């Protein structure tokens, strides 16, 4: 039951972040900048859930990410699941420092940005040619912002997991 709650809360947290990021991109898009931050979803909390819950959670978040930012539907959903499957072999919740988790998220973000740029330029002729200048500027900006966001997002997920509790557990006042 607790695992199902964490599963739901993590998807909810991802959704909140995707909507906020989309609004932020809508504002800075006027000046030709765009933040690309799918690496942020690789928080170590998924290790708490086990494979059967963490993969659907990442897949749903990836599908939402694809839809909100006009990627090919399913690209990030599968890419995130694949990177997670590889990473879970050496990343364990509680054993890594927050700095190590941030570095992992940066690497995941970098890998996905490169994969998406290759996909754009090679396979999808209807997508705009992603110029290397814009790619490098946006990647540098995204990575710079990912460092503080990664630390914040982990705390945000923790507070949501602690804060959102089922009604069956009762309100603290009633328990007294």
């Amino acid at each position, binding site marked *: 039951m607790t695992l199902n709650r964490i599963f739901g809360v993590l998807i909810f947290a991802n959704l909140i972040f995707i909507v906020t990021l989309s609004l932020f991109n809508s504002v800075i*898009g006027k000046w030709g900048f765009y933040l690309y931050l799918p690496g942020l979803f690789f928080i170590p909390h998924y290790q708490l859930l086990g494979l059967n819950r963490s993969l659907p959670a990442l897949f749903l978040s990836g599908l939402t990410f694809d839809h*909100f930012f006009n990627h090919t539907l399913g690209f990030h959903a599968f890419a995130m699941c694949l990177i997670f499957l590889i990473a879970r072999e050496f990343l364990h919740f509680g054993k890594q420092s927050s700095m190590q988790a941030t570095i992992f998220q940066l690497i995941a973000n970098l890998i996905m940005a490169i994969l998406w740029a290759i996909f754009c330029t090679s396979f999808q002729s209807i997508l705009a040619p992603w110029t290397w200048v814009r790619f490098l500027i946006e990647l540098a900006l995204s990575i710079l912002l990912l460092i503080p966001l990664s630390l914040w997002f982990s705390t945000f997920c923790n507070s949501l997991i602690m804060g959102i509790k089922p009604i069956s557990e009762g309100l603290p006042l009633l328990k007294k």
Partner: protein
Amino acid sequence: MGAFFALFIGLPSSWKIFTKSAFDEFQAPIWEITSRISDLSNYWGHQADSKKTLISKNRDLARIRADWTVHENNKKNWENEISRLKDLRSRLVILQKELGIDPEASFQPIIARVTHRNLSAWWQELSLRKGTNQKVYPSMGVVFSHGIVGRIKQSGFNSSKVELCTNPNFRIVAHFQGDDRPVTFQGDGILPGGKPMGVVLDVPHDITIEKDKPLLLKTSALGGTFPSGLHIGTVRMLEESGDGLFKNGKVILHKDLGKVPEVLVLSPTLLPIKQD
């Protein structure tokens, strides 16, 4: 996971379209609410304008009013001009009928507010606050004060998405100012700093650009989406295309294309329009 990937690829496209439209209908109210909150905060922000700001705004308003008065005094001249143009138009319609040419499509404007911008490197689109309930349908043209914006790609009940003219799969028939021969305009993304770009293809060989005299690219009525003569962008240089038959060139679009807060949707008058 490989099996799941194969299953996902093999899913019928109707399921994917259904999922996308379900996501869109879920997404649209979020953008509408945030856009309305932004409008409201803008309104309350202006409530706190200082006296200095109000005085300078009144000065600007007085100048606009003075300009308006000048035009009002010229009312008689404008009325004469309107009747002359109406007369010319009716003669044109008679000539078109005699020659068996289809009349140029006429449009009715629908004003719509922009709720959200998605201006990534690979895809550029705007979300609008009006949809099928306000008779906004796919493939209608969208314009703003400095020229074309794009084309309606998708319509929900109360929202719609505009494919910006910088998108690479946005292609329309165009022509250069002062030259009726059709050329092709295609979107070419947005550069860092927000500079929207396009390309012009199939330009005849005899069209050349003199130094410091860029050519203006205008819409053509041939496509049916836009009326003839709307501004698209400026072309400063043309170069040989690969086949040697035509020329190609970069088109510089208006810098405010991505910043536009309100647009005009051009609805063909064949459709019954209800303005709200």
